């Protein structure tokens, strides 16, 4: 039987990396990008036509979160209930903190939705270095479809049914990674202390996300803890770069430029903190990261707040 095809929407580094990973699997791979084809990727069919992309029943979406709704709305014109739509977008949308899969549910007829997460980075994935990824979906046929398309001896996929949890975990790990970059750049932090910060940050994130309907255990798995641990060593992770630059005294705009990729977490930190307060959950780590972004407090006070609240 002919293997099904897989589509990737988004021509940025993450989209390209997903497409490259897909070419190592059994499916024919399509990549939709509005940009000119500026990279040569073997075995990937480029398209600028959403209708053509929709010929694939499994579609991975890799666009910045601020474009999620627009893209879903346009793509939704070409989809039906047989499609499987999985995103790798780190973010929560609007003041209501909607997950991206909620946006997809509102804008498309697709019911079989999923998300990707975990510590895998675009460059590792593109290069085919051994790495691990989490795929979450409430429908078991979604995780199975992604596994069949992407899993290889170099990419290990972990499955969870807690879609909401993984989406929240990915978004919050983005926020917390700014703090990791910041603290590391301050120089005087021992590995033990850094580990204490990470543990504390994951606890806090889990409590907030549980209030939003996530499962706690997702935060202590690869999509939460694992993803945040990776930030210790991922010196070029955009959120880590941002935190480091801010610690070195850069203004937010400069730091943002040096991070190169869009950092979703900048706008997200205050929204999540506001949500936590509305649910009576205390969030000292997130508040301290908010101060990093505002540069509204002296550095010593911020570091103290990160560790002690």
């Amino acid at each position, binding site marked *: *039987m002919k293997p*099904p095809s897989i589509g990737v929407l988004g021509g940025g580094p993450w989209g390209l990396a997903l497409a490259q990973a897909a070419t190592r699997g059994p499916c024919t791979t399509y990549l939709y990008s509005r940009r000119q084809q500026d990279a040569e990727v073997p075995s990937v069919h480029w398209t600028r036509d959403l209708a053509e992309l929709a010929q694939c*029943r*499994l579609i991975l979406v890799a666009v910045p979160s601020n474009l999620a709704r627009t893209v879903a709305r346009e793509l*939704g014109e070409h989809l*039906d*209930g*047989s499609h*499987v739509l999985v995103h790798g977008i780190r973010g929560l949308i609007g003041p209501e903190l909607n997950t991206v899969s909620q946006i997809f*549910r*509102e*804008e*498309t*007829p697709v*019911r*079989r939705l999923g998300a990707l997460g975990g510590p895998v980075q675009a460059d590792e994935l593109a290069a085919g270095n051994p790495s691990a990824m989490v795929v979450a979906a*409430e*429908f*078991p*046929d979604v995780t199975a*479809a992604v596994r069949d398309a992407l899993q290889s001896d170099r990419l290990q996929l972990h499955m969870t049914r807690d879609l909401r949890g993984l989406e929240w975990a990915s978004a919050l790990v983005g926020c917390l990674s700014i703090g990791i970059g910041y603290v590391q750049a301050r120089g005087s932090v021992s590995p033990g202390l850094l580990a204490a910060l990470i543990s504390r940050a994951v606890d806090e994130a889990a409590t907030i996300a549980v209030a939003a309907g996530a499962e706690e255990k997702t935060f202590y798995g690869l999509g939460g803890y694992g993803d945040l641990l990776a930030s210790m060593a991922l010196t070029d992770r955009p959120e880590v770069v941002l935190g480091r630059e801010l610690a070195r005294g850069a203004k937010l705009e400069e730091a943002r430029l040096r991070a190169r990729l869009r950092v979703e977490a900048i706008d997200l930190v205050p929204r999540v903190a506001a949500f936590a307060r509305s649910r009576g959950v205390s969030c000292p780590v997130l508040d301290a990261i908010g101060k990093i972004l505002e540069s509204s407090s002296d550095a010593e006070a911020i570091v103290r707040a990160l560790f002690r609240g």
Partner: protein
Amino acid sequence: MPRSAPIFHFNHERAALVAQTIDRVCAQTRSPLHALNDAAYWETRRLEASRKKGDQDELAEWRALSRKLSRMTDAERRSQLKELVGNYAGDIAGNFDPRVYRLSTRILPSLVTGLLAPGSLPKKLRHPLELLKLDAIADKVVLQGDTARLQKLADKGTLVFVPTHASNMDSIVFGFALELSGLPPATYGAGKNLFTNPILSFFMHNLGAYKVDRRLRFDLYKDCLKAYSCVLLERGYHSLFFPGGTRSRSGAVEAKLKLGLAGTGIESYVSSLRRGAERKVFFVPATINYLITLEAETLIADYLSEAGKARYIIEDDESSRLSRVLAFVRKLFTMRGAVVVRFGTPLDPFGNPVDGDGNSLDARGRVVDTSSFVRDVRGEVSFEPERDAQYTRELATALVDAYRKNTVVMATHVVAAACFEHLRQQAPGADLFNVLRLRDQKISRDELARLVLERRDALRELEKRGEVVLAEDVRDTSGGDLLAQAMSAFSGYHSAPVIEAQPDGIVLRDPKLLLYYQNRLIRHGLAFDPEASTQKPGPRRGGGA
């Protein structure tokens, strides 16, 4: 009864329905040894606790079977399985017992003539649904919702009505509602214990009920029920399920559903697609709203009592006592709009809304090919139980949402919420059980009317957002009039007064019943939620009548 009613149709098709059910269950059962062992284990356990002569004989048969099972050949086990499944399927489909029927017809006239006394009654007795169409009942049961759309859908596919469940009167009331709305009658599963009650049994047989024996808890029996339900749906029998599984003990609108049977909606749809003859299934959420509930006293007592958790089937409540049913029905006849049945937007088995032509709609209101939801990544229609279980969970979410939005608020609910709020103010910080101990609290009529109005106005705001519906005589009525409506509804039916008017104020006599009636508004955030308080009455067991 019209000749097209399912009971006639049914008697003609009964053998085929049962045979198809048996074939399906036997084909699905991978290990007859396991299935029979499991059934024997549960049945032995159940029957050991019984002292009835019949049960003892049955016990001996099960024990004998247990002993033989391991020595039997596979073919012998298959044949044993077929026999057992045949018994269950036959029992579920029910016997249209003429003796029961005659008994019922002897009792009914005295009941109904006593209430209505129109001269034409005797000749209508052989046509109970005609009888029920009498205007006398029609203005007691108010119908709401887009029944024209439902009538159209009844021709395009199989309707599955999924109403809220508050009372044993529900199946009867809902049967009237279907008849009055020009909708076809629906077949439904009713607790076998209800068939022992001659009054209810009469209606059940005539409204197309099949029997569910809730004492049988093992998988093989459940498989028989599901298969039977699925066969009915595939053959286009419009059906009725109460997804709450049991009457709401607290009085609250259901927030958690049991969808074992509703899951057969997808199964029957997929199987129609695979046969190349698509037959759509439409779920119709509905709320049945009572000004007063027949069994309110028993239900709330059961909800509150620790012992109640173990009472799986209530066999001795108001609905089994003729005098109480009579008192209730008599009360019903004195009140206009005492029952409101409201139909919500129909849904496909995947929880998508459906338009008048039977098309599934997405969240943006665009038509989507219904079959696409059961196609795999290769585009083939597939049976995938785990996928379909998730769709059914999402359908449940949509139903719970529909129940909340289609709850019709009556005077008794608003007044009870106001009274209960007053009680809680009298004992700040007290837990639920301490509030319930506050007996005979007095409140001035003006103060109570003010509390009532406050709640009603909040409900009106919710109604504007489509989050709830107010009964006609609640929407624009003064606080004092709402209070009067509720008092008149409460008086004369419940065994003790719920609230009582005295010259210098209103006395709150029965906090438990006030809790029961105010619980209807929990899901709207406008009544005290006992489940959210520190001392929970504990999780409720499902099942029951």
